[in-house]
């Protein structure tokens, strides 16, 4: 038996884009430094060589302009993939990505869809300070008409990105600079992962840990630690927050009677608060305690290493939350 193929998160993203570009000429990639520079984070390395400058397009630092341009092109029937070097930079493109892409289909009464994927790094990258550390899912998941994927591993990243590109709706695809070098099993064979299907990545009986993106790893760390302490956690990776697979979480909570939601965005009006609210609603009689939540601290992202670590969700905070939720304080 041959060893399972392992590749980096960034390679999984590139494979997804390249495969979709080979099968559909309407797909093209644009963004800052995606072509000649091979990608600011080397996600698009080698793609210019394979697909040429007409399909791998370096844009100026002009997010509002090129995001809007991609949306116009999508209305005509192209399927652009737009790389934001950081989702923090998408804020200057808020009007096109929030006012145009998700509303075009509705405002036109179903005449114009908008098949466009915006992707890039989201969340704290490592001492980047306040302006570059946005978790935009806190803002953007509020908006109907978009789909949002936040994968935690290379396998999911590839399968979800292929689904995003092949689909017909606008997708915000949130990656993490801190995970681009993470390796994981990605098979050679083609596969797609549907949106709205959470993965139960660790089974347990005492508490449900629900998360997405990078904090999933903190949940797994915490679950290991808690196992040593005699508390068994079920860890669910939601994978997409729009749609949000509440059903899988609810089924788990009906078993465990306790739930901790871990979300890297700020707590106020976040996907985490939405999930907690849904769990409260559907598991009102099942829960032994209120749904606990672990978020980034409700402050601008600090620069100093120790403060940034304290700001972000981490395994220690999750362990504390689970102990509280299961009355093990």
């Amino acid at each position: 038996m041959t060893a399972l193929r392992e590749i980096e998160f960034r390679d999984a993203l590139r494979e997804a884009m390249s495969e979709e570009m080979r099968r559909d000429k309407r797909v093209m990639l644009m963004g800052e430094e995606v072509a000649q520079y091979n990608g600011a984070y080397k996600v698009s390395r080698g793609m210019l060589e394979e697909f040429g400058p007409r399909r791998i397009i370096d844009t100026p630092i002009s997010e509002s302009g090129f995001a809007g341009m991609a949306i116009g092109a999508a209305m005509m029937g192209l399927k652009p993939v737009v790389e934001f070097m950081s989702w923090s930079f998408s804020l200057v493109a808020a009007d096109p990505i929030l006012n145009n892409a998700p509303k075009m289909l509705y405002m036109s009464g179903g005449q114009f869809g908008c098949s466009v994927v915006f992707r890039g790094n989201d969340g704290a990258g490592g001492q980047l300070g306040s302006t570059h550390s946005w978790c935009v899912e806190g803002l953007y998941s509020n908006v109907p008409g978009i789909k949002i994927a936040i994968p935690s591993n290379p396998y999911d990243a590839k399968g979800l990105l292929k689904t995003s590109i092949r689909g017909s709706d606008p997708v915000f695809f949130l990656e993490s600079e801190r995970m681009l070098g993470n390796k994981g099993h990605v098979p050679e064979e083609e596969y797609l992962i549907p949106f709205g299907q959470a993965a139960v990545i660790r089974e347990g009986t005492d508490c449900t840990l629900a998360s997405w993106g990078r904090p999933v790893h903190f949940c797994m760390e915490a679950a290991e630690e808690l196992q040593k302490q005699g508390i068994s956690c079920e860890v669910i990776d939601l994978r997409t927050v729009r749609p949000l697979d509440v059903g899988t979480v609810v089924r788990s909570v009906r078993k465990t009677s306790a739930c901790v939601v871990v979300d890297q965005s700020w707590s106020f009006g976040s996907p985490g608060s939405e999930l907690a609210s849904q769990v409260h609603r559907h598991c009102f009689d099942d829960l032994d305690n209120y749904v606990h939540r672990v978020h980034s601290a409700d402050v601008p992202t600090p620069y100093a290493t120790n403060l940034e670590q304290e700001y972000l969700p981490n395994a220690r905070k999750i362990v504390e939350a689970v102990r509280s939720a299961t009355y093990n304080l």
Partner: protein
Amino acid sequence: MTTLPPSVPPAPAATEVHAKVFGATEHLAPPPGKIEVPAERMKQWLHDMLLIREFEVRCMQAYQEKKIGGFCHVYIGQEAVAVGCTAAVEHRDPIVTAYRDHGHALARGMDPKYCMAEMFGRIGGCAKGKGGSMHMFDRDNNLFGGHGIVGAQTPLGAGLAFACKYMDEVIDGKPSSRVALCFLGDGALNQGAFHEALNLAGLFDLPVIYVVENNGYSMGTAIARGTTMAHSLVTKAAGYGIDGYVIDGMDVVDVYAEMKRIADRCRATSRPAFVDMRTYRFKGHSMSDPRKYRTKEEEEVFEAEDPIGKLQRRLQAAGQLADDEFKAMQKAIRDRVRDCVAWSDASPPPPPEELFTDVYLEPWGPYTGSTQPEMNGGTVNPAGFKTIATKEELS
């Protein structure tokens, strides 16, 4: 085919008013001089402009009667721009515009009853009553909206051109053959999106024509109060390596002739263009604007240049439009627009189910307006789901 006399330049007093509104130094493009336009074609333009005028008059009336809600911006005075510009391009060339969009929709060929019903918020509207006055879309006529945020459509216009060129050259392997028309108001010139769009259009050689419908005012702010180089807007385009043109937007024949030349060139060279289209809105910015920022005298000067009257007089002077023919045209249009209002009145409001349609092309189940997929069965546990044992049973 008839050779037309060149259009008559404004009287000296009017020129002063023009200078006051648009700035002193700019020169209009030279009149096209001898241009061959069949009389039938000009009569069609006269018809189209009259249709927009009558449509807008009835819109204002319907707005007063509260049949139309929200914001409503009428196109009265600017008809020659939409009619002349759409005549100068091909039907397959995509068009996108801002929120003063009824004229473009009609000029592009949208049945006015769909446009009116849209404003009435009825299911018969072009967007089933979900878009409203500022958001007219018509796929069959390659009209890509109607956009409510000032300047938002300018990057979209670049994208339409990008897609046209990409589809022709990269997918089909043939020369680029379409141009995109992107209309904007003079108020949009100060939005970042506009400058980013022009930079991208210049940088990527996109076949898009930015037509600034320069009516001298962004809402109540005179152009020179909000825009640098108001007297020479083409210099803004020059900064992005884009050729700029000034056109008298009150003369539909000039608009057509100049825009045809520009569009042909844009199509052939696959390069963008910028047009400072001098026009005037006879009414306020929206229905709630008392127009206190400009004088009656100024309005009268421009009203004397009414593009409809101008073309009508020209045709009549050339013996190409008999009085009774014109009257018959007016009556037919009045009847048609009245029928549009009746049709829109009769069109039912969108059914409640429409609230949840057109949000996603590929929803994850019957969409009922939430984020979780449990909606596909309406319950958390789909049929056949084995209920998990209680905690007690597990322990």
